């Protein structure tokens, strides 16, 4: 019997810097598996964000560019427009995509740029040490909302998948999570669909993945999973929001 489980070729054989209980590792693996399954590693260019995944190129084994904060969709646009034969994906967090980079993602999606965005939403700024994000939940405590997010003051958390689905340009938009095995299989299918739509030159694709941040939430990894199910998944509902067909 041969090996039944091994590291995808698109992942490097290295330790990551991600915290215990963080779901970036699972998401990296799913993206890498999809890249392997589609056989596109050698023509794939990733675009790294600013945030926890800024060093994603240390973990993916393909060409990579590193964007400024929020600008990954503009960079991916530049790459894909001049080299439509490449497979291009951005890997962005919620501070990067939903705050400073909201303009870039909306316009890239609206132009129907044929790249894929993996949007990791953990409702907080991770890399900078746990500040409030546009996706932070009402009453959620962060270092810049120490008494809980006051929606009277800063509004409600932004639902990115719904927002981008409101655009009229055809796209594939899905929201998934990876906090339990039953969710992971669905997330993998959505990521595979997203890349397939790109490979078939069909449309822009974005998979939002509701994620955990035990370190900055101040919870154990297990509590973080429970908190995600009870608080995030009730607001950030899973499912496919838009398909191009």
């Amino acid at each position, binding site marked *: 019997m041969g090996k039944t489980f091994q590291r995808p070729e698109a992942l490097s054989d290295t330790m990551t810097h991600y915290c215990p209980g963080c779901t970036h590792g699972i998401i990296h693996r799913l993206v890498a598996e999809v890249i392997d399954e589609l056989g596109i590693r050698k023509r794939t260019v990733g675009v790294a964000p600013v945030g926890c995944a800024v060093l994603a190129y240390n973990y993916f084994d393909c060409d990579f560019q590193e964007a400024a904060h929020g600008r990954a969709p503009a960079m991916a646009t530049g790459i894909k427009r*001049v080299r439509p034969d490449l497979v291009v994906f951005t890997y962005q967090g919620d501070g990067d995509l939903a705050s400073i980079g909201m303009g870039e993602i909306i316009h890239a999606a609206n132009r129907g740029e044929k790249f894929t965005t993996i949007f990791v939403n953990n409702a907080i700024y991770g890399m900078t040490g746990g500040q409030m994000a546009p996706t932070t939940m009402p009453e959620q405590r962060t270092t810049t909302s120490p008494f809980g997010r006051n929606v009277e003051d800063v509004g409600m958390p932004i639902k990115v998948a719904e927002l981008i689905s409101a655009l009229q340009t055809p796209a594939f938009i899905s929201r998934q999570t990876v906090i339990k095995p039953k969710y992971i299989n669905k997330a993998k299918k959505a990521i595979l669909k997203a890349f397939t739509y790109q490979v078939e030159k069909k449309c822009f694709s974005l998979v939002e993945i509701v994620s955990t941040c035990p370190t900055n939430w101040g919870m154990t990894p297990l509590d973080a999973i429970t908190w995600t199910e009870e608080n995030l998944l009730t607001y950030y509902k899973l499912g496919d929001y838009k398909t191009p067909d």
Partner: protein
Amino acid sequence: MGKVLMKGNEAIGEAAIRAGCLNYFAYPITPQSEVAEYLTKRMPEVGGVFLQGESEVAVAYMIFGAAGAGERVFTTSSSPGISLMSEGISYIAGAQCPAVFVNIMRGGPGLGGILPSQADYNQATKGIGHGDCRMLVMAPASVQEAVEMVMNAFPLAEKYRNPVMILGDGLIGQMMEPVEFPDHLKTEPSNKDDWASNGMDHRKRSERNLVRSLFLDPTALNDNNLQLKAKYDQMKKEEVRSESYNSDTDYKVLIVSYGTMSRVCRTAIDALKEEGIDVAMVRPQTVFPFPEQAVRDAAQKESCKQVISIEMSMGQMVEDVERSVRGGKPVHWFGKCGGDVPTPEEVVDVVKSLIN
């Protein structure tokens, strides 16, 4: 192809195509929007890419992405737009990618105005972005020279893997002049497989390429900055360009002026000559690197008693002139920055006031 009468902005667009640059991303801003209007028609004819971005911020990163993928790419903008692009230019310099930026300057600060200006001199030559980044900056004084500089800019950007800027003013962009286009550039970007993220199966080597400007290890970051500095030092040795006018006379005054302003000064120098007053000019064609030696040598001539920097800004290049003259002769400044270009008569009066 003989001479054609062309608007500066359109000629700049055509020059890029003739330099083999078939990728253009831009955001409209007066007084250079004609470049985009020209290229939206022209790029499809040559199988090129034209895209109007959502902002200058985004455009700078479209340029970065395309440059990082190893393709020739350029954009055009004007002063406030260049401010928005300056973040991206710093990243492009840090990641050592080649790209060409054209700044058709208008008056500032803030929204300023839409008329010609040279008030982005310091930004272009000294402060284009955060960190120790510099660009090679060329300043054309005619539509013909703008065409030649645009065509030279791409090989230079690739030689140094660094952003190159064409620093024109609104007049260069808006006026029509006869122009003769040089032959198409034949050179392909040479070494892109060594560094560009153009897809692993596109290259002979099996290692991947990373385009990045983050170096968390202080030694690695210092090394990257030393590499950049070595390139800027090499530019100072190899790329300085300037032109002299009326310099073989016993001139009493030396003017340093560039771009549109230098053409006005040339007319003033001719008028002064008719009155028996000899004045010389050094016209920087590169403003970074600045022609320090040419300015210093011209100022050191025994007959020369005064040096004046004449520019459409409130005294920016004058600091480079002072730095070049090194206290050997008095250095003055004259300029206007509302968008109305100083007249030859005004320059004549200013020069006379220096010698009387």
